[in-house]
């Protein structure tokens, strides 16, 4: 297992650099031949996003869009895209990382300021689409980050830390899932499963209650809708270490969808592959748990119900468990949070619910 990730990430880095360079070369050649440079890339419009049941995720269709520097409306975003390629090439070459916010500010030094971060984020997505790789591949990360805790020893591959190892039980608060961890090699683990939790309070409770030992698990804190680096990290735990993944969220349409994005990805990231963990399971809290465990609950509001209707039609929600739970939500019109178990004492969720659920799920 050792070194495989290091090799892989080195190869990946070389691959990204090559793609960026050939992108630049192509544009140069067009200019030299006297053409206005143009690029063709897959369209990310709604009409071109399809659900692929085999991959169990959204993918882009065959429609493409053409961006030309000869078109005044394309000119500015085109320039931004080329700059972004140049900037991330610099980042990747020097093995530095940058946040989305950094990127937004960095453009100002080149007199091509973005109007707001949305604009720069969308250019990054364009670059992902053009190159066919993720922003993490060219060292751009989002601001927010989640955490991991459990018996997993990793070895860093980032500059100045190459070869340094860390056991992920070293910090009682967990270890931040940042660029360095995402690209680290997995050395060894005693865990046999991954438990991903939506909320920070529960994550801390699980560590305090030694869930990682009692259930032989690696705990991942999702911090709501999981950032891409976390989804990528979970995928690696699943694929490289062969660990099953169980996801715990609030019992409401939004919690349900947090689990779904980890499993099947989002439409927003249809242009990106290798972010999903199709075998991960949503382990709760289910709508049906509210009655079965007599959990304190709230009434669904209008927005919740609207969202449920949307999910009902969503191809990712075709599976039995999803349709079953959506129906229960609709029938009972109740929702509850992970913390609702505290009604029966702080350890109830760990002592009663968790073992029972994991058993049900075939553990």
């Amino acid at each position, binding site marked *: 297992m050792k070194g495989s990730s290091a090799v892989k990430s080195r190869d990946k880095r070389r691959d990204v650099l090559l793609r960026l360079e050939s992108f*630049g070369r*192509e544009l*140069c050649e067009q*200019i030299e031949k006297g053409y206005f440079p143009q690029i063709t890339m897959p369209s990310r419009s709604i009409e071109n996003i399809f659900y692929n049941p085999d991959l169990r995720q959204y993918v882009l269709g065959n429609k493409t869009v053409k961006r030309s*520097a*000869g078109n005044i409306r394309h000119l500015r975003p085109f320039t931004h895209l080329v700059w972004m390629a140049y900037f991330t090439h610099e980042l990747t070459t020097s093995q530095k990382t940058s946040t989305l916010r950094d990127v937004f500010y960095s453009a100002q030094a080149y007199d091509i300021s973005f109007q707001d971060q949305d604009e720069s984020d969308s250019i990054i997505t364009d670059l992902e689409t053009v190159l066919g790789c993720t922003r993490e591949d060219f060292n751009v990360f989002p601001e927010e980050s989640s955490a991991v805790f459990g018996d997993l020893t990793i070895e860093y591959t980032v500059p100045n830390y190459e070869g340094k190892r860390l056991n992920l039980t070293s910090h009682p608060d967990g270890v931040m899932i940042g660029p360095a961890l995402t690209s680290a090699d997995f050395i060894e683990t005693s865990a046999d499963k991954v438990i991903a939790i939506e909320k920070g309070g529960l994550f801390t409770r699980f560590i305090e209650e030694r869930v990682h030992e009692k259930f032989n698990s690696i705990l991942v804190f999702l911090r709501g809708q999981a950032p891409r680096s976390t989804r990528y990290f979970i995928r690696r735990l699943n694929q490289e270490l062969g660990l099953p993944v169980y996801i715990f969220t609030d019992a409401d349409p939004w919690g349900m969808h947090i689990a779904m994005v980890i499993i099947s990805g989002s439409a927003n990231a249809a242009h990106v592959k290798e972010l999903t963990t199709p075998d991960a399971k949503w382990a709760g809290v289910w709508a049906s748990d509210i009655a079965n465990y007599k959990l304190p609950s709230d009434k669904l509001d209008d927005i919740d119900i609207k969202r449920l209707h949307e999910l009902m039609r969503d191809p990712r929600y075709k599976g039995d468990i999803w349709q079953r739970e959506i129906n229960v939500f609709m029938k009972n019109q109740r929702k509850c949070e992970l913390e609702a178990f505290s009604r029966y004492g702080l350890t109830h969720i760990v002592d009663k619910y968790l073992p029972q659920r994991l058993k049900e799920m075939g553990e």
Partner: protein
Amino acid sequence: MSQVFQEISPADFFYRNREIAGFANPVRAIFSAIRELIENSLDASEPQGILPNIYVRLSFMNEKNENLYVLRVEDNGSGIPADFVPLAFCQFLFSSKYKLKQSRGTFGLGGTMTILYGQITTNKPVKVISSTGTSKIYEYTLMIDVERNRPIILDRRIRENENKWHGTIVELCIEGDYYKAMPKILEYLKQTAIVNPYANITFVDPRGRLYMFERVTTVLPPQPRETLPHPHGIDVETMYRIIRVTNCRTMLDFMQKHFHRVGKRIARNFLKFAGFPEDADPKKLKPEEIVNLVQAMKNFDEFLPPDASCLSPLGENLLRAGVLKELEPEFVAVSQRKPSAYSGHPFIIEVGIAYGGKIPVSEDILLYRFANKIPLVYDESGDVSWKIVKSINWRNYGLALNMPFAVLVHICSTKIPWKTVGKEMVADRPEVSREILNGIREVARQLSIYLSRKERAKREKVRLSIFAKYLPKIAEFSAKLAGKETPSVDELLRRLRRLEGE
């Protein structure tokens, strides 16, 4: 109770009704005095083919009284034959202008009224110096006998005219209020300069300030030709006068000789229409027959429309020159409409629109009105042109009230359709207002085209500057990515510029 009937002289009449001629109060009086004398000077030079040089000086009569002025107006006009000077200046309704052709004044009233007003407010005589370019210069000191409408010659001197000078100098004393009248006077002078771009006008005001309006062209407008009255414009009194002087023996000859554009065929048709034998003697027409004849003339619609040879419009080139000179706009469009007629009176409308440059942004539409090359600076809101410019939806032409533009309307006619005796407002005659409206529309369209072209050029410039900013960056970053020399984007930019030029 017995009533006393009394005949009054024309001079007496105007003395009693001086507001008719624009002398209602000291402010209006000083304005009107300057205006009347300048117009006389212009009428004495331009129609004779002389490029007008006019010098106007207004100074205090003495230091004690700020309301008493000496007004002196000098011109280089054709001058007045010596014997006519007293009558021309000091007898009401004596004029060289009782002819059917366009001129500024019509009845010779203004100049005499000015002198009368000066006389009644200061009790001082007027001094008139004139020469027609002969070897003599005549210098008169005159007053008006109001009751008898006769000039009183106080003094008459004759000097040698060594330099063959021709022109007229009028110097009179007058009561007025220059400071209150000043804005209108300066406005009047400026607008006079617009429609008389071939004139040099110099004004020195009581503070010693010098205002100069210099000519920008030596071209004069075409001179009006005298014409016969058009049958549609004849009234009973005019008909009597014509019959009194005619030596025609038959109606057929009479019609052809005394009326505008009436030939044998039309004369015959008309007489048949009116029920007059062709060989009737015009001198023997009975009063009721004369009335019938005039009525028939008004109702007969086969008369040819009057031609415009009796008019002296400025012409598009002169109007443009005047606007450019005095208003200094960024853009000007002018248009001379085809001659038209109302009630047998020919007229021509000339319009202009000026935009940008030194044209100010005003709260309302900036309108310059002219009639027979005279600016109309009073009573704007009662004028037909005002009504028309207010009725136009300027947005259709890409214009808004907060934009700097000015509209000019000039009406030339042998008989301006005045709304009131004050001669400041043109009346709303359908024939006239149609021409004004169409004229304004035409020049507004030209301005609209100019503005949209300008806007397009501006957009193109912005467009090009965007390309010029971003293309080199694309070249630079892609070259850095590729590890190559930055390729030149000059050719691409050149191509864009060529596209723009198309």
